[in-house]
């Protein structure tokens, strides 16, 4: 066998000689040895130290070994016979599934941890603390497409909204907008915390799910920003936050189960909010509020779509799953039974926004509009429950048990 010889020229280990040597050693046939030529002053000393550390055997011919005429680099200054350490490190290596979403595995190993899906994983290492590690619990086939859509539709709060457009509102109408914004902020804070907490528990193997949850949390961060900015566009004082509203939102944080948390937040809560944001798009008294309602609606619709897709897949696989969903609604209803529900200031503000003025006739119209809103919310929830496989009568019953706080 013709020995393989590499010429390092004047390059030493202080300039990356080891990179060349690793490549050359990897190309050696089994049982082969690598001759090294080069002129760096410390080459042989550093070769000896490097080979010792890497577990390679090194032979240094006292006067160098001649090479065939025409071979660049002069005599061979040292011969390396690679040791088994590199091979042994990867002997039990395995692919962490495949990079394509179709190659997601049912249950990724805990020690794959933060490795990229599809990477060759060295055995060993600490088990990563991701308890949501079963495909059937977290995955939805729609997740990759939804993530791509979410990434493509990110908007910049600084430029997507014409903050300095000119409008004037009566003080009480402005106060109603501020009250609604104050309410939206606290709801969106819950909607940020829930996916963020779940995200930290999902095995990174389910990359598109974690990406989607991350964008969902980022969406909510943006919503919090624009709602706050609209609330303070004309003044510094925010509206009220009721104990009952906060009790309802806090109950969302208590659900540890991925699917049930997703159900309560995305399918029921954010689903209900789609109607609220449409209502604001219709009745908001100024272009800034209408615009931010439309942008938030676009994002929330995506959150609802993932929740429904994920849960519909589970429901199809396991009809008994619907019993768990029902239980989650009932538990939350029971927890909230003794709380006041939605902040009355919010309902009054929504009524005034739909009314447009304080005239009794206008208020009556506004009141009717808010009643229609609540009916639409009810119908929307019921329809989504039907899509999850609930019979119509049961969907109607469960829709009625949803929190009066909307989210």
């Amino acid at each position, binding site marked *: 066998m013709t020995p393989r010889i590499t010429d390092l020229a004047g390059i030493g280990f*202080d*300039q990356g000689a080891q990179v060349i040597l690793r490549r050359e050693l990897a190309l050696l046939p089994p049982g082969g040895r690598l001759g090294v030529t080069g002129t760096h002053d410390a080459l042989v*000393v550093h070769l000896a*130290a490097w080979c010792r550390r890497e*577990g390679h055997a090194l032979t240094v011919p006292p006067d160098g070994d001649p090479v065939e005429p025409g071979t660049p680099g002069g005599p061979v200054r040292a011969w390396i016979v690679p040791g088994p*350490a590199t091979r042994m490190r990867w002997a039990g290596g395995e692919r962490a599934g495949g990079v394509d979403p179709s190659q997601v595995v049912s249950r990724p190993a805990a020690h794959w941890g933060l490795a990229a899906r599809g990477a060759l994983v060295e055995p*060993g*290492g600490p088990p990563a603390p991701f308890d949501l590690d079963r495909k059937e619990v977290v995955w939805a086939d729609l997740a990759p497409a939804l993530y791509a859509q979410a990434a493509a539709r990110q908007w910049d709060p600084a430029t997507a909204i014409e903050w300095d457009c000119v409008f004037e509102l009566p003080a009480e109408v402005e106060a109603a907008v501020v009250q609604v914004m104050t309410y939206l902020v606290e709801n969106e804070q819950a909607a940020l915390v829930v996916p963020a907490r779940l995200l930290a528990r999902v095995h990174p193997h389910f990359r598109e799910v974690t990406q989607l949850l991350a964008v969902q949390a980022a969406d909510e961060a943006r919503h919090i920003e624009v709602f706050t900015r609209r609330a303070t566009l004309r003044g510094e004082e925010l509206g009220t936050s009721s104990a009952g509203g906060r009790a309802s939102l806090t109950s969302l944080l208590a659900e540890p189960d991925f699917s049930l948390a997703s159900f309560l937040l995305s399918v029921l809560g954010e689903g209900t909010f789609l109607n609220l944001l449409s209502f604001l798009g219709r009745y908001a008294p100024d272009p800034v509020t209408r615009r931010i309602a439309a942008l938030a609606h676009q994002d929330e619709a995506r959150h609802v779509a993932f929740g429904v897709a994920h849960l519909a897949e589970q429901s199809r696989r396991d009809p008994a799953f619907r019993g768990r969903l029902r239980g989650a609604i009932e538990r939350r209803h029971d927890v909230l039974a003794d709380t006041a529900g939605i902040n009355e200031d919010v309902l009054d503000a929504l009524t005034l926004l739909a009314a447009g003025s304080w005239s009794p006739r206008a208020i009556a119209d506004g009141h009717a509009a808010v009643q229609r809103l609540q009916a639409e919310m009810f119908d929307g929830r019921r329809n989504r429950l039907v899509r999850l496989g609930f019979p119509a009568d049961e969907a109607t019953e469960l829709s009625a048990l949803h929190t009066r706080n909307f989210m």
Partner: protein
Amino acid sequence: MTLLMGAVAYDAKVVTIWSGFRAWLRRHGLPFDFVLYSHYERQVEDLIAGRIHAAWNSPLAWVRARRLGEARGEPVRPLVMRDTDCDLRSVVVVRADSGIDTVADLKGEAVGAGAVDSPQATLLPLRHLRELGAAVEARLFQVGVGLHGDHVGGERDAARALLAGEVAAACVLDANHLLFTQEGTLPAGSTRILTMTDPYDHCNMTIATSAPSDLVEEFGALLTGMSYADPEVRPLLDLEGLTEWRPGRATGYAALEAAVDATGFYDASGRVTATAYDP
């Protein structure tokens, strides 16, 4: 009975390494435990006094243990060592542009070395220079005295002093010269190797005569049986800096024995005779 080993806590990772090895050894049926020492002298004294059965010894600690053991009629032996403990060299480096081309040019110059008790950065290279006839002024960079040079800080300080022009040459382990050039402590092309020692051996697992032979043999067999392919021990082997344990040998310490004698570091019976050495 439990086989008790001593190790010197020169770095926090020593706890990780030996706690990991302890768990592995015990799971493989060896009753094993370890104690940590703050410096090598007490570890060697306890080994010879029979308070521990084995000591994970620096080369200098091996020299002292051998002398103490023989003086008391209880000779010690090296059980195993790392593959990376075999055939090390120390190098004496100068600034590339210094104009110092031969060892003779170092005459009267300040030469940076490690701690007083560092075999690789002080005892061995300074003896090497003396053997070559160079009368130099050794300037010690005393980091981790008592750790027998395990702490790399002294060598790094010597290398920095060389670059700063405070010393004309610096003594470092070949592997540390490689490390310093790769990490940038010594920029590419900034230094030149003036001379180097012959190969010598580094650490070994030293066994006391009084140690229970069956447990010792099992200990040696388990260590040499550790495989780099085992994902449980590989991180520990990486931390300890080896890819395999090899049978110990006592043949690589002659130069250090001579350096110890030349400097009067220990006497023939293993007493510490070095002045100003207070680990």
